[in-house]
């Protein structure tokens, strides 16, 4: 097994939870991937259960050839992030995985009271394409092997990602 180490979390990452949490869970995910959609409430529950013992980071791994809306959805999350609403958009996207057309994305931006003109312009100009692709390339080089891929304190989680399995792995890693 090739447990890969991972570059550290930096300020370009989207994180939830304290920087000094004993365990960092990184997800490489795709907003159109149904399995990532199943993992979403599990991660939310883990965050609630572990509280300050867990830091969560989400990075993009859009498999756009199987999920044709994934790359633009990822860029939408970044565009929302530029307006301090990454996590709200992340939630909106996972809660509406079957409605990820351009107009849908703009609708979520509106629901979140974002500057929709800016949001739409940044989507049109693919401002965050590079960032999203950099996440994908970095993830692949770190050993991400599909969506979702979880890393717990830098080690790829090769087990299932049901709540119990992930929870055990997080506890074992020190939370």
């Amino acid at each position: 097994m090739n447990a890969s180490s991972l570059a550290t979390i930096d300020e370009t990452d989207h994180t939830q939870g304290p920087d000094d949490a004993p365990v960092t869970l990184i997800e490489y995910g795709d907003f159109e991937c149904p399995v990532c959609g199943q993992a979403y409430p599990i991660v939310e529950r883990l965050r609630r259960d572990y509280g300050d013992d867990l830091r969560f980071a989400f990075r993009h791994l859009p498999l756009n050839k199987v999920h044709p809306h994934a790359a633009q959805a990822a860029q939408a999350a970044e565009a929302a992030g530029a307006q301090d609403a990454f996590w709200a958009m992340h939630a909106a996207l996972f809660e509406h995985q079957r409605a990820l057309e351009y107009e849908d994305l703009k609708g979520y931006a509106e629901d979140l009271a974002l500057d929709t003109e800016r949001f739409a312009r940044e989507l049109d100009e693919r401002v965050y394409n590079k960032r999203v692709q950099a996440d994908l390339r970095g993830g692949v080089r770190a050993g991400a092997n599909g969506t979702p891929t979880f890393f717990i304190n830098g080690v790829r989680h090769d087990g299932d990602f049901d709540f119990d399995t992930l929870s055990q792995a997080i506890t074992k890693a020190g939370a």
Partner: protein
Amino acid sequence: MSTRQSTQTTPGAESALTPGSPAPEFTLARSPDESLSLGDLRGQPVVLAFYSADWSPVCGGQLALYNEILEEFQRFDARLLGISVDGVWCHKAFAEDKNLEFDLLSDFEPKGEVAGAYGVYRDSDGVTERALFVIDGDGVIRWSTVSPIDVDPGADGILAALGGLPEQEATR
């Protein structure tokens, strides 16, 4: 899917050809009416990805990931080839469904012969191991790995191996 963590020992790993071995030559169907010979690819690195079956229920799994990062392989001028024991029509339907933009080869008749030559055929269940080989432009295996059947190997090992090939260093 198994809930087990992978272990260090991978049954089948012992028999797989190792770096330094010449890559066994083969000619396999790449579509219902075309075939491909490994020897024709001399001069460029080749990545052979043996996998168990076309329609195994893995979402966004190994081949979808490789398909997404073909540019990364192309940076090394490398040609990616998927190989399983599925027939050409099965491959065709699968590749179309997943929008795959690389060739899937059929190790179909005699079944698993090429996988056997590379030491990665599973007699017990009639499919190939999840095995990866990186072959250099001279037809020599430079890197190989066999993963537990339920662990997706990802692409990091392939990219690292391609990066380590002397002649075919990044073309850009």
